[in-house]
């Protein structure tokens, strides 16, 4: 399974390389592999099918333009695409809210100078995604909502505190404790970080 995964990442890298060379057929390969995940995240974040379609187009356009700048050492292609998806969706949410959210989106990528960070560390299998979904349902209400508002709506911690009517310190604690529980649900295959 892990091997199959690595193969997917390698295929993705080769595809992005072809895109960087201007090969438009590479783009359709990438689309066929990831459009569903991209569209699903955008639908979840925007709750609007038409806008989600626009996000998919934005993400593939951006991927095409930035293929030469893609850095495999920083994140696997799928993580790169999902980060763009989240960023473009948050842009649209913000435009809707006309509210500035203090978010450094790229900070969701592990420390770039971290020598131990590897592609595998961001590897999520479909099975693990299922587990994660289940584990989200088992979190406390505040933990789950705080994480969802942060990740899917890009709210700042103070906005979340206001929305959930909880002290800011509680929100910080709940976000961390909730994510730690989700980490347990992901279990093995978490990469070299957990092995240590």
């Amino acid at each position, binding site marked *: 399974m892990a091997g199959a995964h690595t193969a997917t990442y390698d295929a993705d890298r080769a595809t992005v390389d072809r895109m*960087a*060379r*201007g090969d438009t057929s590479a*783009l*359709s390969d990438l*689309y066929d592999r990831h*459009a*569903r*995940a991209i*569209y*699903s*995240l955008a*639908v*979840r974040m925007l709750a609007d099918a038409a806008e*989600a*379609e626009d996000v*998919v*187009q934005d993400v*593939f*356009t951006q991927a*095409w*333009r930035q293929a*030469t700048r893609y850095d495999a050492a920083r994140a696997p292609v799928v*993580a790169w695409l*999902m980060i763009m998806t*989240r960023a473009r969706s948050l842009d649209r949410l913000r435009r809707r809210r006309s509210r500035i959210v203090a978010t*450094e*989106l790229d*900070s*969701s*990528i*592990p*420390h770039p100078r*971290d020598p*131990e960070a590897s592609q595998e*560390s*961001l590897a*999520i299998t479909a099975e693990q995604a299922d587990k*994660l*979904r289940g584990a989200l349902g088992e979190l406390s209400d505040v933990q789950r909502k705080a*994480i969802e508002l*942060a*990740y899917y709506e*890009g709210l*700042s*911690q103070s906005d979340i505190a206001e929305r959930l009517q909880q002290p800011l310190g509680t929100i*910080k*604690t709940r*976000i*961390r*404790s909730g*994510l*730690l529980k*989700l*980490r347990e649900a*992901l279990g093995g295959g*978490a*990469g070299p*970080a957990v092995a*240590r």
Partner: protein
Amino acid sequence: MTSMTHDELRELTGGYALGVLSDEERRALEAHLSTCRECTLEVRELARVAAGLAHAVPQVDPPAALRGRVLNAVRDEPARPAHSPKPAQAVRAAAPIATWLAVAASIAALALGLYTLTLRQRIETLQAQLRDVNARFERELQIARASADRANHVSVILAAADVRRIDLAGQAAAPQAAGRAYWSPSRGLIFTATNLPALAPGKQYQLWVIPPGKNPVSAGMIDLETDGRAIVLVDPSTAAQVGTVAVSVEPAGGVQQPTGDIVLAGTP
């Protein structure tokens, strides 16, 4: 905030992984991560969880028509320069910036040069104006001093113990004119006149002091004021001995001995 403890910073790992920290918190945690292995590992693991959240949503198939739409949109993108290896790409990306910087710098230098030139011109103008103002001030100061000196001289003569009054009568050439002098042999002479007729261009009134039994001595030219009045101060060296005071019409600038019509004359 500036001195957060390890435990406080560790509370931020979740928000960091989700990208929702304030800038201040993010900087504080990143500084901490450079020295704390424990927190670094935690951030890395939670970042993986965050990455997983992107996939932990209900999976929905996009509409079939979207594929063609997206691929066509990208094909309509302006052509990109052909691929080159990444380092070269980086250099190429940097080159336009460097070029731009060079252009910007040269524009800045040019603008600065022009600005300096403008400033220099402005300074020169101001310096010239300052010189003018100083010169005018100097002139006015001299006039004021002269005026003060005159006033002082007048008062000294008038207050002198040996002062004597000399009335000058209008002569045939200017019967309406009248003059008066105050003469102190030790302090000098003040001459005043009224109703002196205006003169033709090139002509000027000249004041004479004629010591008894001697030739006339020039006591100076008379600058006529608008209404025909005049005042002249004469040094005591010139007016030590006075038999007659007279005024004649002479070529502008004066002469050694009177040549023209006498308009005023009087004796002590």
